């Protein structure tokens, strides 16, 4: 018989009568390694193709196969793409988590589940749809060993029917997903069709959620931050990539290798790049330092544990003034932490990475588009300032799917910084590597191999004078360190400027950065609509801090610094930088549980602190 159990709870009944259009979240619970990623991508793309703003977030375990994994798709007509705390439709394929998944739902939510899991008896205030997946998959997939994978495409068909997704869109998305693998595409589409047909024949729609065509995704792309970063690095003219595999940064390197192979082979059939999978992160950054010293645009990509290992070389880069670009796709620490969960927890340690007086330039992208753009910024800044530059992405930004406007072709020229050629040396007669000729703290360098007898200098991490000779003289050390400090201060005006968004009559300010931006955008609307609280918003995009940040704090009564870590790391950095009379204005909204930031939590916390 048809297995639709409509909850008797009033709220559910009420909701069913008022359709909720283009505003919902779907969470699919499966086992890691069961092939659900394809199904979820097809579902995401189908909604995207209907013109509805959408985002997809993968909550996965640090495991190859077997442990539970969740994929959340959010469709929102207003363009909110942050994680939504409330789940509206749960697809429950995993026996292990079935019970907990159902118990965690808010009243009125819908559950589509694998029939043998018998979840409908658990709650009376939810809407249940039971689907006999094994029975449906057998006729469409004669090959038994493929059934485990194909089974997941059935729920795509069921969801499509329940939410009014055109099956034509599913087919289009599916054929894009499987590209040239026509047989696999056919098999999977048959499964989606079977799910769709089953839902049409046997399920009675009882939830209020519905998707309708819009035109808000026209021309847009779907990309994850790591692919966007990789693409940016290719267009930034990166020539050397050395890396060591680590979640969640590996896909940046892997995407980049693919792009390099496609787009950076010269007419002679030779590579205009070198990629090395190093033996560890120490070697990865060492190769970057060596390559940059010799004149390449070199980079590595890593996450927290790798950053810790790179500490000594970061100090060398700072002190010997060698460019380097390091991507930190942040994950949850300390130590191994939660390797597959997102955080903004490396801010403070990276700012001052290494022993002695060091400070480093950091960039904070908040979208794939900025990942792409900041790749150019990072390489240019590293070479202009002759120092290490960290791009602080995170797992949510790096590994999840984001909608984006297509990236415009970069108009930023490739800036190689102050490098003297053979001809320059003939004209000048010589040079002093660490002399502040231009008053900006940045000296001139030469590249090894420059064919001039005056080209060479000695690079060292030990004490040195303006001529790059070994020195322990107090005045040499002090003047060198003061120059480095001046140089660093220059970067305030060179890093990407903060982005400020205002509301009329706002007295309250919010500061955030990176992937938190998406929750903040939504949260500010909630504060305005639910609490009549107007806020201005400043998004930090670089460290050292631009002067606009102090001005913003000065202009507001209270400023909430929102970030995804426990210890209010960005707020701490601000405290070190701001005039002391501004510091008492700062309030912290710092939280981290490993899940991407959601708007509701931020809204509730700020509202409570505002006495609302």
């Amino acid at each position, binding site marked *: 018989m048809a297995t639709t159990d409509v909850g008797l709870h009033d709220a559910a009944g009420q909701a069913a009568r008022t359709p909720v259009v283009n505003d919902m979240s779907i969470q699919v619970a499966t086992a890691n390694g069961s092939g659900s990623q394809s199904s979820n991508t097809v579902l995401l793309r189908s909604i995207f193709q209907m013109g509805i703003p959408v985002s997809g977030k993968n909550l996965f375990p640090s495991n190859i196969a077997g442990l539970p994994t969740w994929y959340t798709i959010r469709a929102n007509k207003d363009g909110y793409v942050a994680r939504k705390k409330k789940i509206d439709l749960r697809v429950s394929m995993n026996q292990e988590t079935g019970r907990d998944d159902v118990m965690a739902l808010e009243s009125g939510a819908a559950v589509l589940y694998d029939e043998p899991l018998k979840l409908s008896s658990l709650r009376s205030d939810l809407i249940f749809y039971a689907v006999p997946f094994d029975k449906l998959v057998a006729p469409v997939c004669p090959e038994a060993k493929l059934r485990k994978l194909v089974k997941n495409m059935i729920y795509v068909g069921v969801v499509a029917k329940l939410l009014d997704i055109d099956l034509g869109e599913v087919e289009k998305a599916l054929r894009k997903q499987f590209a040239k693998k026509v047989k696999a595409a056919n098999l999977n589409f048959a499964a989606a069709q079977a799910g769709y047909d089953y839902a049409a024949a046997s399920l009675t729609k009882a939830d209020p959620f519905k998707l309708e065509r819009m035109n808000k995704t026209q021309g847009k792309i779907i990309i994850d931050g790591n692919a966007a970063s990789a693409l940016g690095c290719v267009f930034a003219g990166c*020539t050397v990539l050395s890396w060591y595999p680590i979640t969640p940064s590996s896909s940046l390197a892997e995407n980049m290798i693919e792009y390099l192979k496609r787009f950076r082979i010269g007419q002679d059939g030779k590579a205009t790049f070198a990629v090395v999978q190093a033996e560890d992160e120490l070697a990865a950054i060492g190769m970057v330092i060596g390559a940059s*010293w010799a004149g390449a645009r070199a980079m590595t990509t890593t996450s927290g544990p790798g950053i810790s290992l790179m500490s000594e*070389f970061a100090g060398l880069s700072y002190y010997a003034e060698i460019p380097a670009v390091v991507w930190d796709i942040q994950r949850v620490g300390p130590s191994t932490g939660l390797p597959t969960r997102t955080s903004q927890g490396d801010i403070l340690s990276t700012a001052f990475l290494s022993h002695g007086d060091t400070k480093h330039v950091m960039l904070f992208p908040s979208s794939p588009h900025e990942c792409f753009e900041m790749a150019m910024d990072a390489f240019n800044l590293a070479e202009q300032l002759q120092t290490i530059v960290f791009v602080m992405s995170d797992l949510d930004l790096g590994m999840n799917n984001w909608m984006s406007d297509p990236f415009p072709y970069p108009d930023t020229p490739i800036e190689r910084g102050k490098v003297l050629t053979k001809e320059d040396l003939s004209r000048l007669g010589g040079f002093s590597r660490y002399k502040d000729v231009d008053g900006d703290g940045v000296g001139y360098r030469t590249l090894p191999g420059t064919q001039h007898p005056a080209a060479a200098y000695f690079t060292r991490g030990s004490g040195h004078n303006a001529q790059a000779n070994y020195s322990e003289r107090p005045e040499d050390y002090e003047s060198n360190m003061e120059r480095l400090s001046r140089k660093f201060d220059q970067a305030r005006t060179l890093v990407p400027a903060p982005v400020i968004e205002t509301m009329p009559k706002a007295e309250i300010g919010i500061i955030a950065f990176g992937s938190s931006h998406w929750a903040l955008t939504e949260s500010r609307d909630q504060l305005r609509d639910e609490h009549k609280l107007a806020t201005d918003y400043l998004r930090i995009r670089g460290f050292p801090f631009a002067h606009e940040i102090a001005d913003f704090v000065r202009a507001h009564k209270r400023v909430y610094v929102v970030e995804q870590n426990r210890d209010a790391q960005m707020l701490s950095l601000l405290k070190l930088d701001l005039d002391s009379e501004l510091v008492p204005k700062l309030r912290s909204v710092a939280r981290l549980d490993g899940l991407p930031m959601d708007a509701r939590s931020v809204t509730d916390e700020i509202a409570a602190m505002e006495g609302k």
Partner: protein
Amino acid sequence: MATTPASPKTNRLGLAVLDYRGGKTTLCAGCGHNAISERIIDALYEMGVQPERVAKLSGIGCSSKSPAYFLSRAHSFNSVHGRMPSVATGAVLANRSLMALGVSGDGDTASIGIGQFVHLMRRNLPIIYIIEDNGVYGLTKGQFSATADLGSKLKTGVVNELPPIDTCELAISLGATFVGRSFSGDKRQLHAMLKAAIAHNGTVLLDVVSPCVTFNDHEGSTKSYKYMIDHEEPLQEISFIPVFEDIAVDYDPGTTLEVEMHDGSKLRLRKLEEDYDPTNKIRAISRLNEAKEKGEMLTGVLYVNTKAPTFLDMLNITEQPLATIPASATRPGPEVLEQVMEELR
């Protein structure tokens, strides 16, 4: 009668030995490292290597200071402890026309740096890697390193109870393509070996025992001058004929092995051990182990392979240095970006 001053002797580039010199050494008088610097200067001069083409790289320690004491006209990088291999790798990738000359010590290589050392050896990157090997840490005043021999005694009486790491054996088994061991006091051998190293295309590992006169040159040390003079067991008499010196000297193929180097130079090894074949990897490793059993300090060209592809070959890197390749070659055009965007729509 007026005499014209004799013009200084020059090499094939018209450069004098002086052009290959460096700053004044700050190492101890009598330190083996200084003798090695002298051999490096002579070899580079005689081979006519353009000084500006060389990149000198080192880690941390007494040995790693020595690049300051030769070839001032070459860029030099005194990096961090044990990490010279990665820095050198990056430099060579950035500019394949550089001749990378890495100088390290036994602590810098076999203790803190063993991880990077073994991986460098696997890659057959074109580099000359010299270990100035004295078995102790000099700058921190005489602690054992990982190449110290079993039973070797410190001045303080401390006896080393751990087996040494044989860097040559590791290098041979992992993929280095020119591996030799020498002694800073064996001027002729080291000189010839360095010239052959310059002609080689691939990873050269030269472990040069270089006694520390301050901390490890006493009775009971196995890396002292006296111990080396008493125990050195050369495998061959080495001579090297550069490609630009067209000298025809007859040799007996029965007693001499001739190896043609990458640039056409000839390395001639007059066998002191009849059955030793330095192109046989397995034999090389087993001979090193026999030497250990017998307490011999085996020196000479332990292994050579001039045919193996280098890391640059494997990476298929373009001939022009990546460092100076123009932006037009490294930033793809707008049509490429548009193509990628279309794929993502």
